């Protein structure tokens, strides 16, 4: 078996599976335990005040998300679900297998699982990012300075190279397994058995798109239009356009001629915004993107590819499909024109994650998605909020996904 490194708690004695799991036996942890809420508060505050973490948008976003006001909102929502006749109880131990190349992704699911009263094993893989290192360091600091929080009783962060035996050993000790990754990765891990009463939550790769109603866009005054462009910029460029929720297809709905004019203004303004230099394309991404553009031009029904600025390539495709799968990021957009928004429905797939929209009512989008049946997106947000990680993700309610529903009916009321 390969060697296991333990990042939290830190140990360098080459521990075995049983030793690592030993401190993690805390079946009486409850939902929203004060010591867990205090831990979140400490993490949030330490990240947002730390000099080292200041320049990392990923860490700052996590700090923001774990801030007390945000957790308080979770608690309100959670409490509203629970009644005397219908409890939520922890599932037990959660084994997280986050993606190797999206730093900090694990922290969000960890927080949801922990706040519901579960203990956690997080297995990291690949290169340790500086953000992940900072997170583990902060966790260690808190555990040292505030031993009363007993962090190591509910959280274990380890790393090992691919080894089905180890995945199996930890799976065997788990009640929920959370798997992120490409289709192949998820297939491989799911072949490793879980105990009979355990469940898998899976988060396969997905891709995202955005839809704009031309008329609504054209009726904006200049500053509102600019704000829409900036919102789109934040959605698209924050993670090099490589998060699952980053839009890579822009669909315009309306009279084609008007849509083309509007799209032109939109991307020109985006190019202006990009020229301010807030986003920097790396050499590697630039090369990768050029190669992707070339391959797309040959393999997909792309009619033309325009370069609005070095950071912005727009490829017009005949239909709003073909944008899924491997992607280069770095400011590459597919663009399609539709007369009617309802035409998008049949083109959607369960491989699509986030549809960010501008200019549509809830009812319109709702009707379109209902007609798509099982083949449609997993979330709809306004442009500008595509990257906000939330309670409902890829079809799961993460606020309850790590809990069991326990109806409690004692017959008491019926008799009295």
């Amino acid at each position, binding site marked *: 078996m390969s060697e296991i490194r333990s990042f939290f708690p830190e140990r360098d004695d080459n521990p075995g599976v049983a030793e690592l799991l030993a401190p993690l036996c805390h079946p009486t942890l409850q939902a929203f335990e004060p010591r867990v809420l205090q831990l979140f508060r400490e993490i*949030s*505050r330490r990240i*947002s*005040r730390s000099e080292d973490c200041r*320049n990392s*948008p990923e860490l*700052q*976003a996590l*700090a*923001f998300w774990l*801030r*007390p*006001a945000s957790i*308080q*909102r979770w608690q309100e929502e959670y409490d509203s679900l629970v009644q005397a006749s219908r409890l939520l109880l922890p599932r037990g131990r959660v084994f997280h297998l986050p993606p190797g190349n999206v730093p900090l992704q694990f922290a969000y699911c960890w927080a949801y699982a922990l706040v519901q009263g579960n203990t956690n094993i997080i297995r990291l893989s690949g290169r340790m990012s500086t953000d992940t290192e900072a997170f583990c360091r902060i966790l260690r600091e808190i555990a040292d300075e505030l031993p009363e929080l007993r962090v190591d009783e509910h959280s274990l962060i380890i790393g090992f190279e691919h080894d089905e035996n180890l995945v199996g050993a930890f799976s065997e000790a788990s009640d929920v397994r959370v798997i992120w990754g490409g289709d192949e990765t998820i297939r491989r891990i799911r072949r490793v058995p879980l105990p009979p009463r355990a469940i898998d939550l899976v988060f396969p790769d997905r891709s995202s798109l955005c839809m704009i109603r031309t008329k609504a866009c054209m009726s904006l005054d200049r500053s509102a239009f600019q704000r829409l462009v900036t919102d789109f910029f*934040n959605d698209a460029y924050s993670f090099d356009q490589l998060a699952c929720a980053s839009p890579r297809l822009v669909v315009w709905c309306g009279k084609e001629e008007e849509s083309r004019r509007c799209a032109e203004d939109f991307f020109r303004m985006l190019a202006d915004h990009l020229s301010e230099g*807030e986003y920097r394309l790396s050499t590697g991404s630039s090369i990768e993107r050029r190669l992707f553009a070339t391959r797309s031009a040959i393999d997909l029904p792309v009619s033309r590819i325009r370069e609005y600025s070095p950071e912005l390539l727009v490829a017009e495709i005949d239909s709003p499909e073909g944008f899924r799968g491997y992607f280069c990021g770095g400011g590459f957009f597919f663009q399609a024109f539709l007369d009617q928004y309802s035409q998008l429905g049949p083109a959607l797939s369960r491989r699509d994650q986030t549809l960010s929209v501008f200019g549509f009512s809830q009812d319109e989008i709702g009707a379109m998605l209902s007609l798509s049946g099982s083949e449609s997106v997993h979330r709809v947000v306004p442009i500008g909020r595509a990257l906000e990680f939330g309670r409902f993700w890829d079809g799961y309610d993460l606020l309850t996904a790590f809990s069991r529903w326990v109806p409690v009916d004692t017959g008491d009321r019926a008799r009295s």
Partner: protein
Amino acid sequence: MNEKKLKEAFMRAFDLSPDRDFEALGYRKIEAWTSVGHMRLISEIEEIFDVMLDTEEILDLSSFSKAKEILAHHEIDFQH
């Protein structure tokens, strides 16, 4: 009093000195007030005043005076 606390939140979030012209601060108008800096500012304000801002308020809070206006809705008084 509350004005001083609000200044404190801005100073912490953006590393500002106390003699700064706070009324002139605006979202994306100073280098530190990026979308990332904004999250820090919200956390600081919420902590200092022990309030919980909703999404609309978070989006609206784009200047020092706007912050006072929003906090006034949470019964935080800037008149005295």
